[in-house]
């Protein structure tokens, strides 16, 4: 039995703060650009924040000697994803097919933003189904 008591390098707390701060700056930049009518600058700041923050979030745990993520993080992520998908599925499956039928019958008009949102949700469910099938085949 042995326990290495040295804790060097990036800590989990610093890692999280760094990622959230960079992505937060990107989101603030996007809103600032929108409010100040500097859309290109806002978009560039947002993309930089999202890409740099995302890259740090993805790469740092692989390079750092400190343990920044583990099986519990994966479990929490899986549970949150499952819950979000479950809620979306229940709401989506209970509404979307009926809306398509009503649209075909001319009772509702699924165009514009609502139509786009429903199409996006349908695509998300389809993507989930494909991903589930792939994961199921591999396990």
């Amino acid at each position, binding site marked *: *039995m*042995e*326990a*290495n*008591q040295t804790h060097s390098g990036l800590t989990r707390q610093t890692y999280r703060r760094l990622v959230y701060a960079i992505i937060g700056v990107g989101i603030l930049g996007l809103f600032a650009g929108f409010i100040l009518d500097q859309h290109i600058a806002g978009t560039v700041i947002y993309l930089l924040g999202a890409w740099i923050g995302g890259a740090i979030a993805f790469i740092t745990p692989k390079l750092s000697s400190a343990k920044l993520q*583990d*099986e*519990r993080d994966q479990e929490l992520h899986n549970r949150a994803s499952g819950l979000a998908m479950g809620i979306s599925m229940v709401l989506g499956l209970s509404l979307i097919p009926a809306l398509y039928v009503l649209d075909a019958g001319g009772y509702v008009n699924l165009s514009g933003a609502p139509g786009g949102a429903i199409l996006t949700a349908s695509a998300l469910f389809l993507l989930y189904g494909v991903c589930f099938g792939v994961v199921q085949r591999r396990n």
Partner: protein
Amino acid sequence: MKNDLSAQREEQDLSQGDLAQAVDVTRQTINAIERERYDPSLELAFELADFFDCSIEDIFQPDQDEA
């Protein structure tokens, strides 16, 4: 699932951080296991048992209603 991880760890005079580093997880995970808010994977349970040189059942016990 109930566990005696906290007692086992304190018996060895280890901090949560020490144990986390020894079994290659985060301190938060050890804390969550000790508070019985997270059931570790079988792999981690084996690692913990191996670390304390005991069997898994010496650390983890099923809840009464699960048994």
